[in-house]
């Protein structure tokens, strides 16, 4: 390395390198723009505000899941349990407030209290699952992939157990309003998703905690020696990914006005795809939420296109699978471009 480094230092091309780096980092936005443009040109009825709002709204659940998953992956971990956490939080919400047979039918006075009340319950579900994962991986030192795969199966089972295998539906109107209301003509769900992305972009890029997530994901030994509480940072990453998943679950329950035992199956894969497409490296320590946003929107716009063309939904699956593979190729291409030109 010393030789190539020595020659590299003498080459004054920092400016053009910045450009290459900028392009490589934001390539997913270029892909999204080209895709959207192509869809607008070639798919009748695609180029409308309503469609775009729908894309953003549809992105809410996978989007929020992706934020949590990104934090887990950037911190050098992995959390496969988010989909089940989301479903469990949704089911807990539904069971708490639903007026149907399986529901507990909680009706506080005044009724709007069901909104903060059920949200609190959902977030507590997330905290519990996140603590469980953190305990397995950080305290018991289990491999994160296997441990959270176990959680994935375990908590999906818990969803079925909680609901007795039945659909729990019928939410009180204040909760329905969360999913249905619009602010300035834009669905509340879209606003909430944007807010979550902005908040966590801020946390990851501007706060010490965010810095630590990258340090721990890049090389946990160095921050440990620097006196940073590495295990706490990892634990916080698990808690955040689970709590965000639970929040997505709560939103999903308001949206579907209840929960089914198989609610949200497949969303883990979509979130995973979005994160990888968005440029988060599975090695840890690398990636930006701005890329992940583009990944989520890209997947969502493709799904919308498939719907508009009235293709079979399995085409969505095939395209998304192909995109994940393409994203992995892109990731390794990025690294070789980096090592060649930077």
């Amino acid at each position, binding site marked *: *390395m*010393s*030789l190539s*480094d*020595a020659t*590299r*230092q003498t080459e004054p091309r*920092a400016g053009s390198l910045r450009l290459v780096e900028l392009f490589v980092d934001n390539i997913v936005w270029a892909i999204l723009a080209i895709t959207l443009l192509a869809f607008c040109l070639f798919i009748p009825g695609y180029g409308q505000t309503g469609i775009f709002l729908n894309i953003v709204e549809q992105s809410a659940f996978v989007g929020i899941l992706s934020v949590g998953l990104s934090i887990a992956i950037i911190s050098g971990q992995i959390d496969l349990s988010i989909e089940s956490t989301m479903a469990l939080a949704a089911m807990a919400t539904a069971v708490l407030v639903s007026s149907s047979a399986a529901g507990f039918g909680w009706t506080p006075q005044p009724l709007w209290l069901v909104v903060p009340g059920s949200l609190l319950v959902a977030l507590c579900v997330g905290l519990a699952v996140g603590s469980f994962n953190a305990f397995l991986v950080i305290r018991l030192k289990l491999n994160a992939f296997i441990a959270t795969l176990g959680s994935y199966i375990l908590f999906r089972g818990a969803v079925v157990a909680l609901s007795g295998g039945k659909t729990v539906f019928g939410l009180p109107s204040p909760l329905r309003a969360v999913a249905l209301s619009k602010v300035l003509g834009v669905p509340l769900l879209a606003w909430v998703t944007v807010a979550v992305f902005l908040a966590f972009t801020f946390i990851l890029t*501007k*706060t*010490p*905690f965010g*810095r630590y997530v*990258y*340090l721990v*994901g*890049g*090389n946990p*030994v*160095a*921050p*440990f*020696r*620097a*006196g*940073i509480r590495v295990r706490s940072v990892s634990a916080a990453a698990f808690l955040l990914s689970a709590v965000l998943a639970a929040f997505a679950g709560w939103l999903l329950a308001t949206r579907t006005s209840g929960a089914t035992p198989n609610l949200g199956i497949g969303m883990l894969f979509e979130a995973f795809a979005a994160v990888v497409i968005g440029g988060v490296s599975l090695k840890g*320590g*690398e990636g930006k939420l701005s890329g992940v946003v583009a990944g989520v929107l890209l997947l969502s716009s493709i799904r919308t296109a498939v719907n508009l063309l009235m293709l079979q939904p399995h085409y969505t699956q095939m395209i998304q699978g192909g995109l994940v593979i393409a994203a992995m190729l892109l990731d390794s291409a990025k690294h070789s471009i980096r090592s060649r030109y*930077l």
Partner: protein
Amino acid sequence: MSSTETEPKHGGDLLQLENVTMRYGAIAALQDVSLGVAAGEVVALLGDNGAGKSTAIKIISGSVKPTSGRLVFEGIPREFESPRASKELGIEIVYQDLSICMNVDVVANFFMGRELVKRVLGVPVLREREMQRITEKVMADGGTKVKSVRQNAEHLSGGQRQAIELNRFVYWGGKLVVLDEPFAALGIEQVRRGLENIRRVRDQGLAVIIVTHNLHHAFQIADRLVVFRQGRLVLDKSTSDCTHETVSQAITGDGPPVQIQ
């Protein structure tokens, strides 16, 4: 030879290990070692594989607690609970694999664990510009040239990464820096710069312990040479009183027994 006869107070005034023994089960990694380091002094720690050098460093850093014996720093007996505790007193360990995160820039590495923040509505926010300014100044003062302190550490050379650590140590008011095999992975030119960096640190009145297998490096940089063999301290002399022969004999245990100063 019996190393148990060394006087308890030994060498320098900044750090002393006094009759330190470290056992791992049946293995005695260190046996009754007494050793001192003064401010403004470079001590080279030599010894064969498994001689106990890294163990001594782990004790100094607070990564492990000695089975018996004590550590005195700045005249006060200390029991470090963790590396954090020794660090707070100004003891810094520069490990062979370096404590650098390749995926973040020079600034983030320089301020690792000591980030400057301001409070915005109670939320701690990184003061990036101020941190960049300080990093640029300290790196320049330390004689280290990097193209930009905003580039990731992966784009730097091994010597530049080492310089980040040393500059960081000096800036944060470090008093004793321990370098474990600092030149193992470096080329000739980089070693030269590394030695220069160490000299600069010493000339600022700070203490340096350097662990190395390379006698030439030790003779070039060290004021004092200390040799461990099988967990015992077998040589502790001013460099000018040593020859390559006496030192390598002390390391391998061949030849006539050597005296402790």
